[in-house]
C-alpha cells in the first residue's frame, strides 16, 4: 500500500474551476461579438440608407430644377401666333401640358398685367380677377417685367389643401416686353407628375414652406414614417421652400433577421448546452468521487487481508492478485499479472499434480471444499497452502474467470507433522518400555534358576576340591539339574507367548489382506507422496492365521515406506505383485529405498537388530517367524533400479 495521496480531489476541483472559466469567457465573448456585429451591421445599414436618401433627394431636386427650367424655356417660346386667338393659345397650352410639366394653368398677360388669355379658362373668375390685386402674382409679374427674366411667385393656398405657385416668364419681341406667360404649378400635381414612382415608393416627398408648413406631399398613406428625413432647399421657386424626403420604414431584409435570430438562438443553445454539460460534469464528478472512495475502501480491505486472492480469466491467465498473495508467493503483482501456466510459483516437484488441479478447476470440476497444494516461493522456499476456488461472475452475470482464495497452512502442517512424529515417538517409546519390562521380567525369571545352578555347582566344586564324598555332592547336582529344567520351562513358556497361542488355521485371501494393510498405512503413504502400484492375483489363497499374516504384510510395507525417507519424492514408489506358481503363492514388495548394505544383510532377520533410530528390531524377525510358521520362506534381494525387493513364498491352500 503506497502513502496516501494528499487530497487529490481538492487539487482537481481547482483545476476544474479553471477549466470552467474558459468556456464561460468564450461564451461571453461570443455573445458580445455577435451583439457588436449586429449593431455594426445595423449602423452601416442606416448610414447607407441615409446616403442613398441624400443622393436621391439631391437627384430629385435637380430633376425638378431641370423640369422647371425646361418649362421656363417652353413658356418663353410663345409667339404672336399662339396668342392670336384663344384656340391657338389652347393648343399651345395643351402642347406644354403634354410634356408632363406639372403645370395646371397657362395664362397670357399683357404688358400691363391684364389677363388676355388663359387655359383652362379661369375656373375661378375671382382668382383671375384678383390676380392683378393678389400680392404674390402682382409682385411676381412686376418683377418679371422689370427684370425680363422668369420670376417665381410665393406659394399661395388654393382652396384648403392645395398650394400653388406661379412662374412669370416675360416674352420680349424686338427688345420690348410684349407680355408675360404665367404658368401655374399646383405643388401636389407637380410632385405627382415629376417624382418617379420608384422614389415615391421609398420616400414620402413633401414640399415645406418657410414656416415649416407642408405645402404638398406625395405619400402612401398606409406606411408610417419613422426616421428623420432630409431636406434640401427647393430653388427655384425659392421663397424658402424646401424639399423634404422621409424614407418609409423599409422592412429589414429577411436574411439579416434570420441571421440575427439564428445567432441569438445559437448563443442560447450554446448557453444551454454549457449549462447541461456543467451539470453533467458536476454529477459525474460526484459519482467519480464516490467511486474513488469506494475503490479506496475496497483496496484498503483487500490490502489488509491476510488471505491471498487471485483472479484468473477463463484461459487461466492471472488478471488480479492482492498484496497478501504476493507476500505469500514472493512475487510482485507486476510479475504475476498476465502470466499463464505454468506459474512461477508452482513447486517443481509437484508440477504435474498442480497442472492437473489447475486444468480441473478451469473445466469447472475443481474440488468445492478446497484443496491443499505445495507452492514454491520466489526464494525457493516451499509452502503449503489451502486454496478455495469460486467462479468469478461479472456485472452481466456471465462467468468471466475464477477467483481463488489462498491461506498459508505451512505452520499448521508443520505442527501437525510434529504432533504426528511426537505421537509416533511416544508410541515407539511405550512399546520399547513395555518390551523392556517384559525382557526384564524374563531375565529375572531366568536369572533365578541360573543363579541356583551356578551356586550348586560352585558349592559342589568347592567340596570336591576338599576331597568330599560323592554322596555329599550328588543331591546338589540333582538339584542343579532340576533348576536347569526349570529354566527350560521358562523359555518354553516365552516361546509359546511369542507364537500367539494356538495357530488358528483358515483360508486367507492374501489380496484382501494386502488391501487392508495398505489401508492402515494409507495416511503415511499419502503424506510421503508415495505411489503404490498393485498387481494382485485374486486366486492367491493360503491356509493360515489371517491376523499374523496381515501383521507380517504390514511390517514389510512399513519397512518399504520407511526405507524411502531419503528418496526424492517423485521417485517414491512401491510395487506389490502377488502371483501363483507351482503350488506356491509369491508376494513381492519392491521399494526404491536406501537398499540393504552387505554388512547388515546377515543380521537382517535377527530380533532386536535395527537400522532405524526408533526401531525395535522386531519387524522382520516377526515377519520371518510368521512366514516360517506358515511353512513359507522370506527372502530379499536388491531391486535392480535401486532399493530392495522382499519376497514371501507361501504354499497355496489345497483345492
Amino acid at each position, binding site marked *: 500500500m503506497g502513502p496516501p495521496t494528499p487530497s487529490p480531489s481538492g487539487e482537481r476541483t481547482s483545476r476544474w474551476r479553471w477549466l470552467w472559466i474558459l468556456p464561460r469567457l468564450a461564451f461571453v465573448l461570443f455573445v458580445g461579438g455577435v451583439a457588436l456585429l449586429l449593431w455594426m451591421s445595423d449602423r452601416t445599414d442606416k448610414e447607407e440608407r441615409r446616403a442613398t436618401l441624400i443622393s436621391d433627394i439631391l437627384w430629385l431636386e435637380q430633376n425638378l430644377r431641370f423640369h422647371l427650367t425646361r418649362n421656363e424655356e417652353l413658356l418663353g417660346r410663345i409667339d404672336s401666333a399662339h396668342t392670336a386667338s384663344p384656340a391657338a393659345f389652347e393648343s399651345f397650352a395643351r402642347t406644354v401640358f403634354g410634356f408632363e410639366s406639372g403645370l395646371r394653368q397657362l395664362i397670357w398677360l399683357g404688358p400691363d398685367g391684364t389677363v388676355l388669355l388663359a387655359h383652362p379658362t379661369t375656373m375661378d373668375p375671382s382668382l383671375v380677377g384678383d390676380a392683378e390685386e393678389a400680392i404674390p402674382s402682382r409682385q411676381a409679374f412686376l418683377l418679371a417685367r422689370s427684370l425680363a427674366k422668369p420670376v417665381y411667385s410665393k406659394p399661395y393656398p388654393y382652396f384648403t389643401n392645395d398650394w400653388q405657385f406661379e412662374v412669370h416668364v416675360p416674352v420680349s419681341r424686338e427688345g420690348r416686353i410684349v407680355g408675360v406667360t404665367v404658368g401655374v404649378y399646383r405643388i401636389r400635381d407637380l410632385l405627382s407628375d415629376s417624382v418617379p414612382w420608384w422614389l415615391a415608393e421609398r420616400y414620402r416627398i413633401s414640399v415645406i414652406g418657410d414656416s415649416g408648413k407642408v405645402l404638398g406631399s406625395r405619400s402612401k398613406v398606409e406606411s408610417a414614417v419613422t426616421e428623420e428625413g432630409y431636406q434640401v432647399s427647393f430653388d427655384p421657386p425659392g421663397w424658402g421652400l424646401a424639399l423634404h424626403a422621409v424614407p418609409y420604414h423599409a422592412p429589414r431584409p429577411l436574411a439579416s433577421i434570420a441571421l440575427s435570430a439564428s445567432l441569438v438562438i445559437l448563443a442560447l443553445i450554446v448557453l444551454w448546452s454549457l449549462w447541461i454539460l456543467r451539470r453533467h460534469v458536476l454529477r459525474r464528478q460526484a459519482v467519480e468521487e464516490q467511486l474513488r472512495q469506494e475503490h479506496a475502501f475496497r483496496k484498503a480491505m483487500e490490502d489488509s487481508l491476510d488471505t491471498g486472492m487471485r483472479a484468473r480469466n477463463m484461459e487461466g491467465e492471472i488478471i488480479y492478485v492482492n498484496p497478501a498473495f504476493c507476500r505469500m508467493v514472493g512475487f510482485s503483482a507486476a510479475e504475476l499479472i498476465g502470466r499463464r501456466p505454468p506459474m512461477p510459483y508452482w513447486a517443481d516437484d509437484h508440477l504435474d499434480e498442480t497442472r492437473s488441479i489447475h486444468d480441473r478447476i478451469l473445466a469447472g470440476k475443481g474440488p468445492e471444499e478446497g484443496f491443499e497444494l505445495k507452492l514454491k516461493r520466489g526464494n525457493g522456499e516451499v509452502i503449503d497452502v489451502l486454496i478455495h476456488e469460486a467462479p468469478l461472475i461479472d456485472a452481466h452475470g456471465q462467468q468471466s474467470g475464477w477467483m481463488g482464495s489462498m491461506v498459508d497452512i505451512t505452520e499448521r502442517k508443520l505442527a501437525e507433522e510434529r504432533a504426528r512424529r511426537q505421537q509416533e515417538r511416544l508410541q515407539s517409546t511405550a512399546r520399547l518400555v513395555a518390551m523392556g519390562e517384559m525382557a*526384564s521380567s524374563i*531375565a*529375572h525369571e531366568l*536369572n*533365578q*534358576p*541360573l*543363579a*541356583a*545352578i*551356578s*551356586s*550348586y*555347582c*560352585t*558349592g*559342589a566344586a*568347592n*567340596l570336591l576340591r576338599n576331597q568330599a564324598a560323592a554322596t555329599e555332592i550328588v543331591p*546338589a547336582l540333582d*538339584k*542343579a539339574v*532340576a*533348576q536347569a529344567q*526349570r529354566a527350560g520351562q521358562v523359555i518354553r513358556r516365552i516361546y509359546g507367548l511369542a507364537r500367539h497361542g494356538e495357530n488358528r488355521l483358515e483360508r486367507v485371501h492374501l489380496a484382501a489382506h494386502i488391501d487392508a494393510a495398505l489401508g492402515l498405512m494409507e495416511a503415511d503413504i499419502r503424506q510421503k507422496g508415495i505411489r503404490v502400484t498393485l498387481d494382485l492375483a485374486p486366486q492367491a489363497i493360503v491356509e493360515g492365521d489371517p491376523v499374523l499374516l496381515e501383521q507380517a504384510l504390514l511390517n514389510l510395507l512399513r519397512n518399504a515406506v520407511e526405507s524411502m525417507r531419503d528418496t526424492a519424492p517423485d521417485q517414491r514408489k512401491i510395487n506389490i505383485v502377488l502371483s501363483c506358481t507351482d503350488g506356491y503363492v509369491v508376494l513381492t514388495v519392491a521399494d526404491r529405498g536406501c537398499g540393504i548394505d552387505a554388512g547388515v544383510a546377515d543380521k537382517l532377520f535377527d530380533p532386536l537388530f535395527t537400522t532405524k533410530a526408533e526401531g525395535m528390531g522386531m519387524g522382520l524377525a516377526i515377519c520371518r517367524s510368521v512366514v516360517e510358521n506358515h511353512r513359507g520362506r522370506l527372502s530379499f534381494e536388491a531391486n535392480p533400479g535401486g532399493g530392495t525387493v522382499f519376497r514371501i513364498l507361501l504354499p497355496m491352500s489345497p483345492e
Partner: protein
Amino acid sequence: MSVSVTHIVDDDPAVRDALQWLLQSRGVSSQAWGGAEEFLSFAAGDLCGCVLLDVRMPGMSGIELFDRLRGLHCRLPVIFLTGHGDVPMAVQALKDGAFDFIEKPYDDNALVDKVLAAIAHDAKRSVRDGSIQLLQQKLTQLTRREQEIMQLILAGKLNKVIADELGIAMRTVEVHRSRIFEKMQVRSAVELSQRLSLLGESPED
C-alpha cells in the same frame, strides 16, 4: 555373644537352598528365610554374622527390610543381591550403610568371600561394642565429683590447679584421682584418655 550366622533372605527356595549349599561348602553356617517378614520376626539386636538380601521379593522388598532392620538397631552387615536393573537402588542402599552389593549373575566364590568379610567386620564391631559397653559400666560407677575431676584431668590440668579451681584441698584431689584410676582400671591419665576415645568414635545411638 553368639555364634556368627549368615542369614539368607530370598523368596526363591531354590536360590536359598543353593546359597546355603554354597556357603556350607566353605564352612559358613547359614540360615535361610523365605521372606522379609519371616526374618524380621526373628531378628534382634544381638545377632552376629551377616545378611544376604535379595532386592526383589514379593511383599516387603529387600530395601524396605534393610530400613526396618536399622530401625530395630540391628547392626548386622547387609549384602544385597541385585538384578541388572536394580543397581542404582543398591548403590543408594550402600550409601545408607549397607555393607556391599553383588550383581546377579555372580561369581559364587567371590560372594562367599564377601560374606566372610562381612562376618569378620561384624565380629570386630561386636568386640568394640563389648568394650564400649564395659567402659560405660565403669563410668556409671564414678560419683559426680569424681566425673567432674576426671574431665579436668582429661583436660590436662595438674592436681594443684584442679584443687584451686574447685576450692578443695590438693590432698582430696589426689584421693579422688586414685579412686578414678582404680574404678576405670587404668594406671595413668594417658591410658584413661585412650580408653575414653573409643566412646568418641562409636556411632551415636
